[in-house]
């Protein structure tokens, strides 16, 4: 006769975040490190215990021990950091892509680069070793063979290097990244192919991803790309109260441009960090003076004026989450 406990449904509570936090968290999803997923190959050991009274004393019995090995999830994403690249003739183009190992184990990824025009040959692919978002011929090594080794959650930037003189018409560059352990339909298992002898299981991305960057000949419109990094007081990257968000605005000016100004309002729920404004890594004072920058509680402004040549300019400033 089975002894059946009464069925009870648990009242589960969802954690609630203040709306500002939620907005910031949503905004920062791409900037966040991967959440702390259990590393592939981690043993998960479970033993239950039972105590009861018999013969006037309390006795204790341990259950069998169940051990599971966390399998390796194979997941990868790639993003064209500059979806459109304006081609300057006869210059070397460095087309950046961001590759993220979104799985829970270290993994090697194979890269393939394809161009939509046969005339365009890829010189080589380089790794942005110092993570400064700028191709540096001396410091950024060529990837040979075309593979990337990434720890769980790690992101790396690669530059696809192309001779601009080869680009006679608009073209696309497609970068594809594939997990070495295997790829395919989500749920496909590669026995023993994961970290520490665990099985590898293909995740939602199929362990394979592609991104496309367009090379355009026509003088493109100026673009302004904004990104951010977060540093919390505890050293983490969580967007919590007191955390410092550093915004980076990259203005890409594909040709001579007049009357350039960069304005950015300080986001609600944050306070501008005094004297944090910089242009091309040179600090600008907050007050209105000879340098091109001003900043106050409401916004930052950088007046670049008339620019005679094409180029990129980087504006940075920081705010504190209130």
């Amino acid at each position, binding site marked *: 006769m089975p002894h059946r406990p009464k069925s009870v449904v648990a009242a589960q509570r969802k954690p609630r975040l203040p709306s500002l936090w939620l907005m910031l968290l949503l905004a920062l999803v791409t900037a966040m490190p991967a959440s702390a997923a259990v590393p592939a190959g981690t043993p998960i050991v*479970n*033993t239950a215990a039972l105590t009861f009274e018999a013969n006037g004393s309390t006795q204790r019995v341990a259950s*069998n021990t169940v051990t599971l090995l966390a399998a390796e999830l194979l997941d990868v994403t790639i993003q064209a950091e500059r979806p459109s690249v304006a081609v300057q003739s006869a210059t070397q183009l460095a087309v950046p892509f961001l590759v993220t190992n979104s799985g829970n184990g270290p993994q090697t990824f194979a890269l393939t680069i394809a161009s939509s025009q046969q005339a365009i040959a890829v010189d080589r692919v380089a790794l942005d070793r110092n993570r400064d978002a700028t191709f540096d011929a001396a410091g950024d090594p060529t990837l040979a063979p075309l593979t990337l080794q990434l720890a769980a959650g790690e992101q790396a930037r690669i530059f696809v290097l192309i001779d601009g003189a080869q680009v006679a018409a608009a073209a696309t560059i497609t970068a594809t990244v594939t997990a070495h352990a295997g790829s395919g339909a989500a749920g496909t298992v590669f026995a023993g192919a994961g970290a520490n002898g665990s099985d590898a299981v293909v995740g939602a991305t199929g362990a394979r991803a592609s991104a496309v960057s367009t090379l355009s000949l026509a003088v493109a419109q100026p673009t302004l790309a904004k990104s951010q990094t977060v540093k919390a007081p505890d050293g983490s990257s969580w967007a919590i109260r007191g955390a410092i968000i550093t915004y980076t605005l990259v203005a890409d000016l594909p040709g001579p441009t007049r009357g350039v100004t960069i304005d950015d309002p300080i986001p609600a729920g944050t306070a501008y960090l005094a004297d944090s404004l910089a242009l091309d890594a040179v600090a600008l004072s907050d007050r209105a003076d000879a340098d091109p920058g001003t900043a106050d509680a409401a916004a930052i402004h950088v007046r670049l004026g008339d620019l005679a040549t094409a180029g990129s300019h980087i504006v940075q400033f920081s705010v504190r989450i209130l």
Partner: protein
Amino acid sequence: MYLRSTAFWVMTGLLAAPAGAAGPLQVTAKVLTEQKTRAADGSVRVALVPARRVVPGDRVVFVLGYRNTGSQPIGNIVLDNPVPAAIAYRGPSQSSAAPDVSVDGKTYGPLATLRVRLADGATRAAAPDDVTSVRWRLANTVPAGAQGQLSFQAVLK
């Protein structure tokens, strides 16, 4: 036994041998995971099978079975399952009594009654992720020969 119209339980698999066979009570632990299979008509059946391969985000069910192998009823039975560090508690299974839970290994109760102490001394309401231990106190004595099963749902972090 049908849980829902599209889900059923498979309880035949790998009931591990009891470790504590010395006394009149035996307790067995199992970890099950959902296995989805798509039938020819497109419906998806979810079966619970012994977990062999889990990846972060997978839902797992921890099942504790107990049996009174003696000849006397046994009372004051407490089943205790510390939640492994890699596992996040989610809630009781639909077929199981709700356990008391603990976020510190000392105080047990329904999750809604528990609070977590923060570094600055303040407290906040406990969430399922905070649970470090799960415990059931059986209100009734278990007659000789009787058995039962309790379970909770969790997810691999």
